Protein backbone atom coordinates (compact mmCIF):
# COMPACT_ATOMS: atom_id res chain seq x y z
CA UNK A 1 0.00 0.00 0.00
CA UNK A 2 1.24 3.45 -0.85
CA UNK A 3 0.18 7.06 -0.56
CA UNK A 4 1.76 9.18 -3.29
CA UNK A 5 1.82 12.96 -3.49
CA UNK A 6 2.19 14.55 -6.93
CA UNK A 7 3.01 18.26 -6.83
CA UNK A 8 0.50 18.95 -4.08
CA UNK A 9 0.16 22.65 -3.17
CA UNK A 10 -2.68 24.15 -1.09
CA UNK A 11 -4.86 26.54 -3.12
CA UNK A 12 -4.63 29.14 -0.39
CA UNK A 13 -0.78 29.27 -0.49
CA UNK A 14 0.74 32.48 -1.76
CA UNK A 15 3.14 32.08 -4.66
CA UNK A 16 6.54 30.92 -3.45
CA UNK A 17 5.32 29.83 -0.03
CA UNK A 18 5.87 26.16 -0.93
CA UNK A 19 9.49 26.80 -1.92
CA UNK A 20 11.97 24.88 0.19
CA UNK A 21 9.35 22.42 1.49
CA UNK A 22 10.23 18.72 1.24
CA UNK A 23 6.53 17.86 0.78
CA UNK A 24 4.67 20.70 -0.93
CA UNK A 25 5.05 20.77 -4.70
CA UNK A 26 7.11 17.53 -4.63
CA UNK A 27 6.61 13.97 -5.88
CA UNK A 28 6.87 11.82 -2.81
CA UNK A 29 5.39 8.50 -1.58
CA UNK A 30 4.80 6.86 1.79
CA UNK A 31 4.62 3.06 2.10
CA UNK A 32 3.12 0.78 4.70
CA UNK A 33 5.51 -0.30 7.42
CA UNK A 34 7.51 2.93 7.55
CA UNK A 35 7.43 5.73 10.11
CA UNK A 36 7.48 9.27 8.74
CA UNK A 37 8.10 12.27 10.97
CA UNK A 38 7.09 15.62 9.49
CA UNK A 39 8.29 18.72 11.29
CA UNK A 40 6.42 21.89 10.55
CA UNK A 41 6.33 25.30 12.16
CA UNK A 42 2.99 27.00 12.80
CA UNK A 43 1.26 28.24 9.65
CA UNK A 44 3.14 25.96 7.28
CA UNK A 45 -0.04 23.97 6.47
CA UNK A 46 0.53 21.00 8.77
CA UNK A 47 -3.14 20.36 9.62
CA UNK A 48 -4.19 21.07 6.01
CA UNK A 49 -1.64 18.46 4.88
CA UNK A 50 -3.11 15.81 7.23
CA UNK A 51 -6.65 16.73 6.17
CA UNK A 52 -5.68 16.44 2.49
CA UNK A 53 -4.26 12.94 3.15
CA UNK A 54 -7.45 11.90 5.02
CA UNK A 55 -9.63 13.28 2.22
CA UNK A 56 -11.41 15.86 4.36
CA UNK A 57 -10.42 18.74 2.10
CA UNK A 58 -9.87 19.07 -1.61
CA UNK A 59 -8.63 22.66 -1.84
CA UNK A 60 -5.24 21.81 -3.33
CA UNK A 61 -3.62 21.44 -6.72
CA UNK A 62 -1.75 18.27 -7.69
CA UNK A 63 -2.81 14.75 -6.83
CA UNK A 64 -2.86 12.46 -3.84
CA UNK A 65 -3.01 8.79 -4.86
CA UNK A 66 -3.82 5.82 -2.71
CA UNK A 67 -2.50 2.77 -4.57
CA UNK A 68 -2.68 4.75 -7.82
CA UNK A 69 -6.28 5.85 -7.20
CA UNK A 70 -6.77 9.60 -6.98
CA UNK A 71 -8.61 10.22 -3.73
CA UNK A 72 -10.16 13.37 -5.21
CA UNK A 73 -12.32 10.98 -7.25
CA UNK A 74 -13.59 9.05 -4.25
CA UNK A 75 -17.31 9.47 -3.49
CA UNK A 76 -18.75 9.58 0.04
CA UNK A 77 -19.28 5.80 0.16
CA UNK A 78 -15.73 5.04 -1.01
CA UNK A 79 -14.33 7.44 1.59
CA UNK A 80 -16.38 5.69 4.26
CA UNK A 81 -15.00 2.25 3.35
CA UNK A 82 -11.45 3.65 3.07
CA UNK A 83 -11.65 5.27 6.49
CA UNK A 84 -13.04 2.09 8.01
CA UNK A 85 -10.35 -0.22 6.62
CA UNK A 86 -7.25 1.63 5.42
CA UNK A 87 -6.61 4.90 7.16
CA UNK A 88 -7.00 6.16 10.72
CA UNK A 89 -6.39 9.57 12.22
CA UNK A 90 -5.86 11.55 15.41
CA UNK A 91 -7.04 15.10 14.83
CA UNK A 92 -5.27 18.03 16.40
CA UNK A 93 -8.69 19.26 17.57
CA UNK A 94 -9.56 15.67 18.69
CA UNK A 95 -13.16 15.65 17.40
CA UNK A 96 -14.81 13.68 20.16
CA UNK A 97 -18.50 13.37 21.02
CA UNK A 98 -18.32 15.53 24.12
CA UNK A 99 -21.88 14.75 25.27
CA UNK A 100 -21.25 10.99 25.26
CA UNK A 101 -19.22 8.87 27.67
CA UNK A 102 -15.61 7.94 26.98
CA UNK A 103 -16.63 4.31 26.37
CA UNK A 104 -19.36 5.36 23.90
CA UNK A 105 -16.77 7.44 22.03
CA UNK A 106 -14.49 4.42 21.73
CA UNK A 107 -17.20 1.86 20.99
CA UNK A 108 -18.78 3.89 18.21
CA UNK A 109 -15.48 3.62 16.35
CA UNK A 110 -14.66 0.00 17.33
CA UNK A 111 -18.08 -1.29 16.22
CA UNK A 112 -17.68 0.23 12.76
CA UNK A 113 -14.88 -2.17 11.77
CA UNK A 114 -13.94 -4.17 14.87
CA UNK A 115 -10.20 -4.89 14.98
CA UNK A 116 -10.01 -5.48 18.75
CA UNK A 117 -12.40 -7.02 21.24
CA UNK A 118 -14.17 -4.70 23.67
CA UNK A 119 -11.90 -5.85 26.49
CA UNK A 120 -8.92 -4.34 24.67
CA UNK A 121 -10.40 -0.87 25.16
CA UNK A 122 -10.18 -1.29 28.93
CA UNK A 123 -6.64 -2.59 28.64
CA UNK A 124 -5.54 0.38 26.51
CA UNK A 125 -7.34 2.85 28.80
CA UNK A 126 -5.57 1.31 31.77
CA UNK A 127 -2.21 1.53 30.00
CA UNK A 128 -2.72 5.25 29.27
CA UNK A 129 -4.15 6.00 32.72
CA UNK A 130 -7.77 6.83 31.80
CA UNK A 131 -9.48 3.58 32.85
CA UNK A 132 -11.41 5.37 35.59
CA UNK A 133 -12.81 7.82 33.02
CA UNK A 134 -14.49 5.23 30.75
CA UNK A 135 -17.97 5.73 32.21
CA UNK A 136 -17.61 9.51 32.51
CA UNK A 137 -18.91 12.08 30.05
CA UNK A 138 -16.19 13.12 27.65
CA UNK A 139 -16.86 16.78 28.38
CA UNK A 140 -15.81 16.24 32.01
CA UNK A 141 -12.34 15.00 30.99
CA UNK A 142 -9.29 17.28 30.80
CA UNK A 143 -7.79 18.06 27.37
CA UNK A 144 -4.90 15.69 28.10
CA UNK A 145 -7.33 12.90 28.91
CA UNK A 146 -9.33 13.67 25.79
CA UNK A 147 -6.13 13.45 23.76
CA UNK A 148 -5.57 9.93 25.09
CA UNK A 149 -9.21 9.01 24.28
CA UNK A 150 -8.65 10.17 20.68
CA UNK A 151 -5.48 8.06 20.51
CA UNK A 152 -7.24 4.91 21.77
CA UNK A 153 -10.15 5.57 19.38
CA UNK A 154 -7.84 5.70 16.37
CA UNK A 155 -6.47 2.27 17.28
CA UNK A 156 -9.82 0.44 17.26
CA UNK A 157 -9.90 -0.19 13.51
CA UNK A 158 -7.74 -1.87 10.89
CA UNK A 159 -5.45 0.59 9.04
CA UNK A 160 -2.50 0.81 6.65
CA UNK A 161 -1.72 4.41 7.54
CA UNK A 162 -2.09 6.19 10.88
CA UNK A 163 -2.11 9.97 10.61
CA UNK A 164 -1.14 11.93 13.74
CA UNK A 165 -1.58 15.70 13.88
CA UNK A 166 0.27 17.00 16.96
CA UNK A 167 -1.09 14.12 19.02
CA UNK A 168 0.76 14.88 22.26
CA UNK A 169 0.37 18.64 22.63
CA UNK A 170 -1.31 18.38 26.04
CA UNK A 171 0.46 15.33 27.44
CA UNK A 172 3.33 15.19 29.89
CA UNK A 173 6.55 13.46 28.91
CA UNK A 174 5.63 10.18 30.63
CA UNK A 175 2.23 9.94 28.97
CA UNK A 176 3.67 10.97 25.60
CA UNK A 177 6.07 8.04 25.68
CA UNK A 178 3.39 5.57 26.77
CA UNK A 179 1.05 6.75 24.00
CA UNK A 180 3.80 6.61 21.37
CA UNK A 181 4.80 3.10 22.41
CA UNK A 182 1.19 1.94 22.18
CA UNK A 183 0.72 3.47 18.73
CA UNK A 184 3.96 1.98 17.39
CA UNK A 185 3.03 -1.46 18.72
CA UNK A 186 -0.39 -1.25 17.08
CA UNK A 187 1.07 -0.03 13.77
CA UNK A 188 3.67 -2.80 13.78
CA UNK A 189 0.96 -5.39 14.45
CA UNK A 190 -0.87 -4.14 11.31
CA UNK A 191 2.36 -3.60 9.30
CA UNK A 192 1.09 -0.04 8.92
CA UNK A 193 2.80 3.33 8.44
CA UNK A 194 2.68 6.21 10.92
CA UNK A 195 2.78 9.74 9.53
CA UNK A 196 3.29 12.12 12.42
CA UNK A 197 3.36 15.90 12.17
CA UNK A 198 4.55 18.11 15.01
CA UNK A 199 6.13 21.46 15.64
CA UNK A 200 9.43 19.93 16.75
CA UNK A 201 11.24 16.63 16.61
CA UNK A 202 9.96 13.95 18.97
CA UNK A 203 12.89 11.81 20.06
CA UNK A 204 10.99 8.71 21.12
CA UNK A 205 9.26 8.38 17.74
CA UNK A 206 11.48 6.00 15.84
CA UNK A 207 11.08 7.47 12.35
CA UNK A 208 12.83 6.18 9.24
CA UNK A 209 12.25 9.49 7.47
CA UNK A 210 12.33 13.02 8.78
CA UNK A 211 10.82 15.63 6.51
CA UNK A 212 10.37 19.38 6.79
CA UNK A 213 7.13 20.87 5.54
Amino acid at each position, binding site marked *: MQISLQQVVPDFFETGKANGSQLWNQDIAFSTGENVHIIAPSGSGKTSFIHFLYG*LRKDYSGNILYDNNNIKNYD*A*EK*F*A*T*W*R*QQNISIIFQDL*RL*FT*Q*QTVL*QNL*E*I*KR*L*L*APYHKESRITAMAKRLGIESKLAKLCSTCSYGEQQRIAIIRALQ*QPFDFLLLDEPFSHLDENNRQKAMELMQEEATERKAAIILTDLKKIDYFKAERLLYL
Partner: protein
Amino acid sequence: MELSYKNIAPFLTAGQNKVSRWLSYVGLGVGVLLLLSSVQMYTNINHLIRDKNTRKNGTDFISITKTITNENMGRDNRFTDADIKELQRQPFIEDAAPLKANAFKVSANAGNMIPFSTDVFVEGLNTNFIDTVPDNFKWKEGDEFVPVIFSTDFLEMYNVFAPSWDLPQMSEKTASSVQLFLLCHGRNGDRQYKARIVAFSDRINSILVPENFLAQQNKVLEGVDNIPASRVFLKTKDANNPQLLNYLAGKEYHVNKDKTKFGRVKGVLQAVVSGLAGFGVLVILLALVLFSFYLQLMIARSKDNLQLLLTLGYSPSWLSKTVAKKWIPVYVSIIVAALLATQLLHLGFQHFVTPARGELPIVIDWTVLAIAVLLLALSVAINYRLVKKSLTEL
Protein backbone atom coordinates in the same frame (compact mmCIF):
# COMPACT_ATOMS: atom_id res chain seq x y z
CA MET B 1 -22.14 -7.47 17.29
CA GLU B 2 -23.78 -5.96 14.20
CA LEU B 3 -24.10 -2.19 14.11
CA SER B 4 -27.67 -1.01 14.43
CA TYR B 5 -29.72 2.10 15.15
CA LYS B 6 -29.30 1.37 18.88
CA ASN B 7 -25.59 2.18 18.59
CA ILE B 8 -26.04 5.53 16.93
CA ALA B 9 -29.25 6.53 18.74
CA PRO B 10 -27.42 8.30 21.62
CA PHE B 11 -25.71 10.51 19.04
CA LEU B 12 -29.01 11.57 17.44
CA THR B 13 -31.66 11.92 20.08
CA ALA B 14 -30.42 15.04 21.81
CA GLY B 15 -33.08 17.75 21.89
CA GLN B 16 -35.69 16.14 19.67
CA ASN B 17 -39.16 17.63 19.51
CA LYS B 18 -41.56 15.01 20.87
CA VAL B 19 -44.73 17.09 20.34
CA SER B 20 -44.25 17.52 16.60
CA ARG B 21 -43.31 13.84 16.29
CA TRP B 22 -46.51 12.68 18.03
CA LEU B 23 -48.63 15.19 16.12
CA SER B 24 -47.32 13.81 12.87
CA TYR B 25 -48.05 10.23 14.03
CA VAL B 26 -51.65 11.17 14.93
CA GLY B 27 -52.07 13.10 11.66
CA LEU B 28 -50.79 10.18 9.63
CA GLY B 29 -53.14 7.80 11.49
CA VAL B 30 -56.18 10.03 10.93
CA GLY B 31 -55.32 10.60 7.26
CA VAL B 32 -54.78 6.91 6.56
CA LEU B 33 -58.03 6.02 8.38
CA LEU B 34 -59.95 8.63 6.35
CA LEU B 35 -58.53 7.35 3.09
CA LEU B 36 -58.97 3.65 3.82
CA SER B 37 -62.49 3.98 5.21
CA SER B 38 -63.51 6.18 2.25
CA VAL B 39 -62.26 3.55 -0.21
CA GLN B 40 -64.12 0.87 1.76
CA MET B 41 -67.31 2.97 1.73
CA TYR B 42 -66.91 3.53 -2.00
CA THR B 43 -66.78 -0.23 -2.61
CA ASN B 44 -69.69 -0.77 -0.19
CA ILE B 45 -71.85 1.73 -2.10
CA ASN B 46 -70.93 0.07 -5.39
CA HIS B 47 -71.78 -3.28 -3.93
CA LEU B 48 -75.13 -2.23 -2.49
CA ILE B 49 -76.36 -0.27 -5.50
CA ARG B 50 -74.95 -2.56 -8.17
CA ASP B 51 -78.02 -4.79 -8.38
CA LYS B 52 -80.54 -1.98 -8.20
CA ASN B 53 -79.63 0.39 -10.97
CA THR B 54 -80.12 0.27 -14.67
CA ARG B 55 -76.42 0.13 -15.44
CA LYS B 56 -75.07 -2.83 -17.31
CA ASN B 57 -71.40 -3.18 -18.37
CA GLY B 58 -70.85 0.49 -17.55
CA THR B 59 -73.86 1.64 -19.61
CA ASP B 60 -77.15 3.27 -18.58
CA PHE B 61 -80.45 2.50 -20.28
CA ILE B 62 -83.21 5.09 -19.99
CA SER B 63 -86.56 5.57 -21.70
CA ILE B 64 -87.83 8.91 -22.92
CA THR B 65 -91.22 10.20 -24.06
CA LYS B 66 -92.29 13.55 -25.44
CA THR B 67 -93.51 15.80 -22.66
CA ILE B 68 -97.25 16.19 -22.84
CA THR B 69 -98.37 19.76 -22.15
CA ASN B 70 -101.66 21.58 -22.52
CA GLU B 71 -100.33 23.14 -25.72
CA ASN B 72 -99.38 19.92 -27.52
CA MET B 73 -102.11 17.66 -26.11
CA GLY B 74 -104.09 17.39 -29.33
CA ARG B 75 -101.10 16.71 -31.55
CA ASP B 76 -99.28 13.49 -32.40
CA ASN B 77 -96.54 13.31 -29.78
CA ARG B 78 -94.89 10.17 -31.02
CA PHE B 79 -91.29 9.93 -32.24
CA THR B 80 -90.69 10.06 -35.96
CA ASP B 81 -87.84 8.19 -37.67
CA ALA B 82 -86.06 11.56 -38.04
CA ASP B 83 -86.33 12.15 -34.27
CA ILE B 84 -84.74 8.77 -33.57
CA LYS B 85 -81.98 9.30 -36.13
CA GLU B 86 -81.16 12.67 -34.52
CA LEU B 87 -80.99 11.02 -31.11
CA GLN B 88 -78.63 8.37 -32.48
CA ARG B 89 -76.32 11.07 -33.86
CA GLN B 90 -75.67 12.69 -30.44
CA PRO B 91 -72.16 11.96 -29.10
CA PHE B 92 -73.42 11.26 -25.57
CA ILE B 93 -75.97 8.70 -26.80
CA GLU B 94 -74.57 5.33 -27.84
CA ASP B 95 -77.76 4.03 -29.40
CA ALA B 96 -81.50 4.66 -29.48
CA ALA B 97 -84.35 2.26 -30.22
CA PRO B 98 -88.10 2.90 -30.44
CA LEU B 99 -90.45 1.01 -28.18
CA LYS B 100 -93.13 0.17 -30.72
CA ALA B 101 -96.69 -0.34 -29.56
CA ASN B 102 -99.63 -2.33 -30.86
CA ALA B 103 -102.07 -0.64 -33.31
CA PHE B 104 -104.62 -3.44 -32.73
CA LYS B 105 -106.43 -4.22 -29.50
CA VAL B 106 -105.20 -6.98 -27.26
CA SER B 107 -106.89 -8.67 -24.34
CA ALA B 108 -105.24 -11.28 -22.18
CA ASN B 109 -106.75 -14.03 -20.07
CA ALA B 110 -105.45 -17.03 -18.20
CA GLY B 111 -108.03 -19.46 -19.47
CA ASN B 112 -109.86 -21.49 -16.85
CA MET B 113 -106.91 -21.56 -14.49
CA ILE B 114 -107.32 -18.03 -13.11
CA PRO B 115 -110.58 -16.12 -13.70
CA PHE B 116 -108.83 -13.07 -15.00
CA SER B 117 -109.13 -11.11 -18.19
CA THR B 118 -107.93 -7.63 -19.11
CA ASP B 119 -107.16 -5.41 -22.02
CA VAL B 120 -103.43 -4.96 -22.32
CA PHE B 121 -100.92 -3.22 -24.49
CA VAL B 122 -97.89 -4.95 -25.89
CA GLU B 123 -94.69 -3.42 -27.16
CA GLY B 124 -91.68 -4.48 -29.19
CA LEU B 125 -88.07 -3.41 -28.61
CA ASN B 126 -84.69 -4.24 -30.09
CA THR B 127 -83.39 -7.14 -27.93
CA ASN B 128 -80.05 -5.34 -27.42
CA PHE B 129 -81.91 -2.96 -25.12
CA ILE B 130 -83.59 -5.63 -23.01
CA ASP B 131 -81.81 -6.75 -19.82
CA THR B 132 -83.14 -10.33 -19.82
CA VAL B 133 -83.53 -12.04 -23.19
CA PRO B 134 -83.94 -15.83 -23.03
CA ASP B 135 -83.21 -17.95 -26.09
CA ASN B 136 -86.88 -18.73 -26.60
CA PHE B 137 -87.88 -15.05 -26.99
CA LYS B 138 -88.47 -15.63 -30.69
CA TRP B 139 -91.49 -15.83 -32.95
CA LYS B 140 -91.99 -16.73 -36.61
CA GLU B 141 -95.00 -16.57 -38.83
CA GLY B 142 -97.32 -19.50 -38.24
CA ASP B 143 -96.29 -19.95 -34.58
CA GLU B 144 -99.25 -20.24 -32.22
CA PHE B 145 -97.11 -19.48 -29.18
CA VAL B 146 -95.89 -15.97 -28.32
CA PRO B 147 -93.15 -15.46 -25.70
CA VAL B 148 -93.63 -12.46 -23.38
CA ILE B 149 -91.18 -10.47 -21.25
CA PHE B 150 -93.02 -8.92 -18.34
CA SER B 151 -92.03 -5.98 -16.17
CA THR B 152 -91.20 -6.90 -12.54
CA ASP B 153 -92.94 -3.66 -11.51
CA PHE B 154 -96.16 -4.83 -13.18
CA LEU B 155 -95.99 -8.14 -11.32
CA GLU B 156 -95.56 -6.22 -8.07
CA MET B 157 -98.59 -4.08 -8.94
CA TYR B 158 -100.64 -7.21 -9.76
CA ASN B 159 -99.71 -8.72 -6.39
CA VAL B 160 -100.89 -5.53 -4.66
CA PHE B 161 -104.42 -5.51 -6.07
CA ALA B 162 -104.86 -9.32 -6.59
CA PRO B 163 -106.12 -10.14 -3.04
CA SER B 164 -108.86 -7.49 -3.17
CA TRP B 165 -110.13 -8.99 -6.50
CA ASP B 166 -109.99 -12.53 -5.09
CA LEU B 167 -107.11 -13.39 -7.39
CA PRO B 168 -104.09 -15.43 -6.25
CA GLN B 169 -100.81 -13.62 -5.60
CA MET B 170 -97.99 -15.02 -7.70
CA SER B 171 -94.23 -15.42 -7.50
CA GLU B 172 -92.15 -14.87 -10.66
CA LYS B 173 -91.80 -18.64 -11.00
CA THR B 174 -95.55 -19.26 -10.77
CA ALA B 175 -96.36 -16.39 -13.11
CA SER B 176 -93.96 -17.88 -15.65
CA SER B 177 -95.81 -21.19 -15.58
CA VAL B 178 -99.28 -19.72 -16.21
CA GLN B 179 -100.61 -20.38 -19.69
CA LEU B 180 -101.98 -17.10 -21.12
CA PHE B 181 -104.13 -16.41 -24.11
CA LEU B 182 -103.72 -13.24 -26.16
CA LEU B 183 -106.76 -12.24 -28.18
CA CYS B 184 -105.87 -9.71 -30.87
CA HIS B 185 -108.69 -7.72 -32.55
CA GLY B 186 -108.27 -5.52 -35.58
CA ARG B 187 -110.15 -4.05 -38.48
CA ASN B 188 -109.19 -7.06 -40.57
CA GLY B 189 -110.15 -9.77 -38.07
CA ASP B 190 -109.24 -11.54 -34.83
CA ARG B 191 -106.41 -13.85 -33.88
CA GLN B 192 -105.79 -15.85 -30.71
CA TYR B 193 -102.36 -16.94 -29.50
CA LYS B 194 -101.04 -18.91 -26.59
CA ALA B 195 -98.53 -16.97 -24.57
CA ARG B 196 -96.27 -17.41 -21.56
CA ILE B 197 -94.00 -15.10 -19.58
CA VAL B 198 -90.46 -16.24 -20.46
CA ALA B 199 -88.58 -13.56 -18.51
CA PHE B 200 -89.00 -10.57 -16.22
CA SER B 201 -87.39 -7.21 -16.85
CA ASP B 202 -86.23 -4.74 -14.20
CA ARG B 203 -85.39 -2.20 -16.84
CA ILE B 204 -88.45 -1.96 -19.05
CA ASN B 205 -91.89 -1.15 -17.68
CA SER B 206 -93.88 -2.90 -20.38
CA ILE B 207 -95.20 -6.16 -21.75
CA LEU B 208 -92.74 -7.04 -24.48
CA VAL B 209 -93.33 -9.36 -27.39
CA PRO B 210 -90.91 -10.14 -30.26
CA GLU B 211 -90.63 -7.17 -32.66
CA ASN B 212 -91.50 -9.24 -35.74
CA PHE B 213 -94.71 -10.55 -34.06
CA LEU B 214 -95.83 -7.00 -33.33
CA ALA B 215 -95.00 -5.77 -36.84
CA GLN B 216 -96.81 -8.69 -38.45
CA GLN B 217 -99.96 -8.28 -36.30
CA ASN B 218 -100.04 -4.51 -36.92
CA LYS B 219 -99.86 -5.15 -40.63
CA VAL B 220 -102.30 -8.05 -40.82
CA LEU B 221 -104.90 -6.84 -38.35
CA GLU B 222 -104.74 -3.07 -38.91
CA GLY B 223 -102.87 -2.68 -42.20
CA VAL B 224 -100.21 -0.51 -40.50
CA ASP B 225 -96.66 -0.93 -41.72
CA ASN B 226 -94.57 1.29 -39.51
CA ILE B 227 -96.17 2.60 -36.37
CA PRO B 228 -94.44 5.58 -34.72
CA ALA B 229 -93.17 4.98 -31.17
CA SER B 230 -94.33 6.86 -28.07
CA ARG B 231 -91.29 5.79 -26.13
CA VAL B 232 -87.64 5.57 -27.13
CA PHE B 233 -84.98 3.69 -25.23
CA LEU B 234 -81.52 5.28 -25.01
CA LYS B 235 -78.22 3.59 -24.33
CA THR B 236 -75.68 6.00 -22.80
CA LYS B 237 -72.44 5.94 -20.83
CA ASP B 238 -73.93 8.13 -18.12
CA ALA B 239 -77.61 8.89 -17.69
CA ASN B 240 -76.65 11.81 -15.42
CA ASN B 241 -74.42 13.48 -18.00
CA PRO B 242 -75.43 17.19 -17.92
CA GLN B 243 -74.99 17.46 -21.71
CA LEU B 244 -77.48 14.64 -22.23
CA LEU B 245 -79.97 16.03 -19.70
CA ASN B 246 -79.71 19.53 -21.20
CA TYR B 247 -80.24 18.15 -24.70
CA LEU B 248 -83.30 16.16 -23.65
CA ALA B 249 -84.73 19.12 -21.74
CA GLY B 250 -84.14 21.36 -24.78
CA LYS B 251 -86.08 18.92 -26.94
CA GLU B 252 -88.83 18.73 -24.29
CA TYR B 253 -88.31 15.01 -23.92
CA HIS B 254 -89.34 13.52 -20.62
CA VAL B 255 -86.88 11.15 -18.94
CA ASN B 256 -88.05 8.21 -16.88
CA LYS B 257 -86.40 9.44 -13.66
CA ASP B 258 -87.17 6.34 -11.63
CA LYS B 259 -84.64 4.30 -13.47
CA THR B 260 -81.87 6.82 -13.12
CA LYS B 261 -82.59 7.64 -9.50
CA PHE B 262 -80.20 5.04 -8.13
CA GLY B 263 -77.55 6.21 -10.55
CA ARG B 264 -77.89 9.75 -9.22
CA VAL B 265 -77.92 8.68 -5.55
CA LYS B 266 -74.87 6.57 -6.20
CA GLY B 267 -73.18 9.45 -8.01
CA VAL B 268 -73.79 11.83 -5.11
CA LEU B 269 -72.65 9.29 -2.50
CA GLN B 270 -69.55 8.46 -4.49
CA ALA B 271 -68.75 12.15 -4.86
CA VAL B 272 -69.06 12.64 -1.08
CA VAL B 273 -66.89 9.60 -0.35
CA SER B 274 -64.34 10.66 -2.99
CA GLY B 275 -64.22 14.07 -1.31
CA LEU B 276 -63.52 12.38 2.02
CA ALA B 277 -60.78 10.27 0.42
CA GLY B 278 -59.27 13.42 -1.07
CA PHE B 279 -59.35 15.04 2.35
CA GLY B 280 -57.65 11.90 3.74
CA VAL B 281 -54.87 12.21 1.17
CA LEU B 282 -54.45 15.88 2.13
CA VAL B 283 -54.17 14.99 5.82
CA ILE B 284 -51.60 12.27 5.01
CA LEU B 285 -49.56 14.77 3.02
CA LEU B 286 -49.70 17.30 5.86
CA ALA B 287 -48.66 14.62 8.36
CA LEU B 288 -45.74 13.59 6.15
CA VAL B 289 -44.69 17.23 5.80
CA LEU B 290 -44.87 17.67 9.59
CA PHE B 291 -42.86 14.49 10.06
CA SER B 292 -40.28 15.67 7.54
CA PHE B 293 -39.93 18.93 9.54
CA TYR B 294 -39.38 16.86 12.66
CA LEU B 295 -36.75 14.72 10.92
CA GLN B 296 -34.97 17.73 9.45
CA LEU B 297 -34.97 19.39 12.84
CA MET B 298 -33.53 16.27 14.45
CA ILE B 299 -30.85 16.01 11.79
CA ALA B 300 -30.06 19.73 12.06
CA ARG B 301 -29.73 19.44 15.82
CA SER B 302 -27.52 16.36 15.51
CA LYS B 303 -25.56 17.91 12.65
CA ASP B 304 -22.18 17.99 14.44
CA ASN B 305 -22.47 14.41 15.64
CA LEU B 306 -23.63 13.15 12.23
CA GLN B 307 -20.77 14.99 10.53
CA LEU B 308 -18.30 13.41 12.93
CA LEU B 309 -19.77 9.94 12.33
CA LEU B 310 -19.28 10.48 8.59
CA THR B 311 -15.71 11.71 9.23
CA LEU B 312 -14.96 8.61 11.29
CA GLY B 313 -15.98 6.38 8.40
CA TYR B 314 -19.73 5.83 8.77
CA SER B 315 -21.29 5.39 5.35
CA PRO B 316 -23.96 7.94 4.36
CA SER B 317 -26.18 5.26 2.83
CA TRP B 318 -25.89 3.03 5.93
CA LEU B 319 -26.75 6.00 8.17
CA SER B 320 -29.73 6.95 5.95
CA LYS B 321 -31.06 3.38 5.86
CA THR B 322 -30.58 2.86 9.58
CA VAL B 323 -32.19 6.14 10.59
CA ALA B 324 -35.06 5.64 8.11
CA LYS B 325 -35.60 2.00 9.16
CA LYS B 326 -36.12 3.13 12.73
CA TRP B 327 -39.56 4.44 11.76
CA ILE B 328 -40.75 1.40 9.82
CA PRO B 329 -42.32 -0.23 12.94
CA VAL B 330 -44.01 3.10 13.71
CA TYR B 331 -45.45 3.35 10.20
CA VAL B 332 -46.50 -0.32 10.25
CA SER B 333 -48.26 0.18 13.62
CA ILE B 334 -50.07 3.32 12.40
CA ILE B 335 -51.24 1.72 9.16
CA VAL B 336 -52.24 -1.59 10.81
CA ALA B 337 -54.20 0.37 13.46
CA ALA B 338 -55.95 2.34 10.68
CA LEU B 339 -56.74 -0.94 8.87
CA LEU B 340 -58.24 -2.42 12.04
CA ALA B 341 -60.28 0.73 12.62
CA THR B 342 -61.50 0.55 8.99
CA GLN B 343 -62.52 -3.09 9.55
CA LEU B 344 -64.43 -2.07 12.71
CA LEU B 345 -66.16 0.79 10.88
CA HIS B 346 -67.05 -1.62 8.08
CA LEU B 347 -68.56 -4.08 10.59
CA GLY B 348 -70.43 -1.18 12.24
CA PHE B 349 -71.76 -0.09 8.84
CA GLN B 350 -72.96 -3.63 8.16
CA HIS B 351 -74.60 -3.91 11.56
CA PHE B 352 -76.28 -0.51 11.77
CA VAL B 353 -76.82 0.65 8.19
CA THR B 354 -77.43 -2.27 5.84
CA PRO B 355 -80.91 -3.71 6.45
CA ALA B 356 -80.14 -7.35 5.73
CA ARG B 357 -77.14 -9.36 6.81
CA GLY B 358 -74.93 -10.91 4.16
CA GLU B 359 -75.33 -8.08 1.66
CA LEU B 360 -71.68 -7.08 2.07
CA PRO B 361 -68.56 -9.21 2.56
CA ILE B 362 -67.45 -9.37 6.21
CA VAL B 363 -63.81 -8.55 5.47
CA ILE B 364 -62.70 -5.19 4.05
CA ASP B 365 -62.07 -5.02 0.32
CA TRP B 366 -58.70 -6.08 -1.13
CA THR B 367 -58.23 -2.62 -2.67
CA VAL B 368 -58.16 -1.16 0.87
CA LEU B 369 -55.40 -3.61 1.82
CA ALA B 370 -53.51 -2.79 -1.38
CA ILE B 371 -53.74 0.95 -0.66
CA ALA B 372 -52.49 0.35 2.91
CA VAL B 373 -49.44 -1.55 1.59
CA LEU B 374 -48.83 1.17 -0.99
CA LEU B 375 -49.01 3.89 1.69
CA LEU B 376 -46.53 1.98 3.86
CA ALA B 377 -44.08 1.66 0.97
CA LEU B 378 -44.57 5.33 0.11
CA SER B 379 -44.00 6.53 3.69
CA VAL B 380 -40.82 4.45 4.07
CA ALA B 381 -39.48 5.60 0.69
CA ILE B 382 -40.19 9.30 1.43
CA ASN B 383 -38.57 8.93 4.84
CA TYR B 384 -35.43 7.31 3.39
CA ARG B 385 -35.03 9.91 0.65
CA LEU B 386 -35.52 12.72 3.13
CA VAL B 387 -32.92 11.41 5.57
CA LYS B 388 -30.45 10.72 2.77
CA LYS B 389 -30.96 14.20 1.32
CA SER B 390 -30.47 15.82 4.72
CA LEU B 391 -27.30 13.80 5.37
CA THR B 392 -25.88 14.62 1.94
CA GLU B 393 -26.45 18.31 2.62
CA LEU B 394 -24.45 18.21 5.87
